[in-house]
């Protein structure tokens, strides 16, 4: 796409330094932009090609696979039957929780099989996403407000929040598994005797607590960065006008920090929707902690094509959520990124 750049001038972005050519508009300007376009396409080509190989190719190949039947043991002949076109059956099998029946055709998947878990995995994924992102937003906002204040030891706090972020998720999962062990420090501190990984609610909350611990710092830092862009004079002026602390928060902080906040929530939501490491290691997907990602991974060894359909469904779900965020909730990532939002601060 970047290789067919024409000589049409583009909008000057709001930031990014001074334009290179200051001459009068005309042929020279067009040539300048054409030459920049040529430059840009050369500079961007390696990245675009690399991403096309590692992302676009697998997506297309997953979609192609998802319309193929998995090779399976033919119940009549007792031989492995090759796949062949499957139409939409891989998709409908997941959505209606249908499995191949012995005599051909499909029946409702028996409980315990992967095929019967699509809606519960979807539910679990959204449950984790909504609960963790909500907790992380509230906690992250609170942390950011504290970190934005001036006090002795502020830099210590700002450094400390990076510690959970820097620990790999696999290690985090093992650490919290140990904390939540029956004889572990978690039960000891709160004087409880909960079998954390033994039933649904504690198992889910073990994952939620671990995830919140690990990712709130990221949220807090993004919100803090947003808070720091609000000029102090605005608060001073509001104070002089007699606005209460709550009014200042609601009328100044919230609207001004909203762009950064929305981007932070969007990032975290998309990240939570693909949650894998924590439940996979911490609870091994048991007790209703199987997310869509875990279901895909479990399916891979039972049939590529069906797994490809499920991963495509997962991708579509994530895409729809991202679309809703950007379109309706005003999380403008590209505008933020390109600096076009800068004038508004």
């Amino acid at each position, binding site marked *: 796409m970047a290789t067919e750049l024409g000589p049409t001038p583009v909008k000057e972005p709001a930031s990014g330094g001074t334009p290179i050519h200051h001459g009068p508009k005309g042929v020279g300007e067009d040539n300048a932009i054409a030459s920049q376009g040529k430059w840009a396409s050369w500079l961007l080509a390696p*990245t675009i090609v690399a991403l096309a190989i590692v992302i676009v190719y697998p997506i297309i190949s997953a979609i192609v696979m998802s319309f193929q039947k998995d090779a399976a043991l033919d119940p009549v002949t007792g031989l492995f039957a090759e796949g062949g076109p499957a139409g939409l059956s891989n998709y409908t099998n997941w959505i209606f929780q249908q499995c191949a029946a012995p005599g051909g055709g499909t029946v409702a998947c028996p409980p315990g099989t992967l095929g019967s878990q699509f809606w519960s995995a979807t539910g679990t994924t959204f449950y984790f996403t909504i609960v963790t992102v909500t907790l992380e937003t509230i906690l992250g906002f*609170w942390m950011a407000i504290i970190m934005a204040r001036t006090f002795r030891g502020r830099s210590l706090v700002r450094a400390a929040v*990076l510690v959970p972020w*820097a620990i790999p998720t696999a*290690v985090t999962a*093992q650490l919290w598994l140990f904390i939540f*062990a029956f004889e572990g420090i978690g039960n000891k501190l709160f004087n409880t005797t909960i079998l954390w990984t033994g039933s649904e609610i504690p198992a889910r909350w073990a994952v939620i607590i671990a995830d919140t611990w690990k990712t709130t710092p990221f949220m807090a830092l993004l919100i803090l960065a947003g808070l720091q862009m609000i000029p102090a004079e605005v608060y001073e002026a509001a104070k002089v006008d007699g606005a209460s602390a709550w009014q200042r928060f609601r009328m100044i902080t919230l609207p001004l920090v909203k762009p950064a906040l929305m981007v932070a929530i969007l990032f975290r939501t998309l990240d939570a929707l693909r949650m894998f490491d924590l439940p*996979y290691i911490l609870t091994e997907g048991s007790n209703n902690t199987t997310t869509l*990602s875990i279901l895909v991974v479990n399916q891979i060894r039972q049939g590529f094509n069906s797994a490809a359909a499920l991963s495509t469904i997962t991708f579509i779900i994530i895409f729809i959520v991202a679309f809703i965020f950007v379109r309706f909730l005003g999380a403008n990532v590209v505008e933020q990124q390109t600096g076009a939002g800068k004038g508004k601060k």
Partner: protein
Amino acid sequence: MTAATELRAQQDRGRKVAQNREKWASVRTYVSAAVILFWCLAPAYWMVVTAFRDVGYTYDTSLLPTHVTLDNFATAFDTSFGNRFGQALLNSVFIGVTVTVISLVLGVFAAYALARLNFRFKYLVLGFILGASMFPGVALITPLFQLFTNIGWIGTYQALIIPNISFVLPLTVYTMTSFFREMPWELEEAARVDGCTQGQAFRRVIMPLAAPAIFTTAILAFISSWNEFLIASQLSNDATQPVTVAIANFAGAQPQQIPYTAIMAAGTIVTIPLVILVLVFQRKIVAGLTAGAVK
């Protein structure tokens, strides 16, 4: 009482209320800061304390270090139960460095173009790169698993390096793009006035100035590759597995018993260098992390 003294008394009271309120606000700030410190550091502290605790006292819950020993670190590297933690460390370093270098080399050019040049489809390219960084790894794993099975790449290093580029390269590009935007580009202009070509200006003037930004991006890229688990857990084998997979599958002498102290020791080894690196470059790292969201 005269009006003047009454007024003074009132002012005094007002000042006292304000002072009190300020004092309370500052107390609240310190209490909150202490809660944040505890919440962020306590679990990490527990990992380190457990790593140094004798395996016989795994579930000792005294908060200060007790039964201190270095045995767990030896156990972590012990291969007699089928763990290959030492090898996994080397694998992770190798994979992380390769992915980081490839992503930086490709990404630095793209970031320069995005930060500096005007061209059509700029927003489209940015959107594509940001979208790529949010792309779910699970959507890649199935086709790659099949492809790598067919060409016999399962368990090879390239099977682990190539998928990592899919999320490290976009991260590299957008972090560096926002760093590049903040740079003093007038110097480049000056170099061009002095007769450098745009390429020369980039190499001789901009590159040295951009070094800290590139270094920070490298740390972020390395960390995200170092933390990768999903793809590695499916496409690696015993010989090529990275540390995340080794730690997740860490086996003890008895299959039913999870060797927590050794796992915590392994976790400490994996984490401490990163934490030190992150704390030393704290300011830059935070700037890089938040670059995409607010700049």
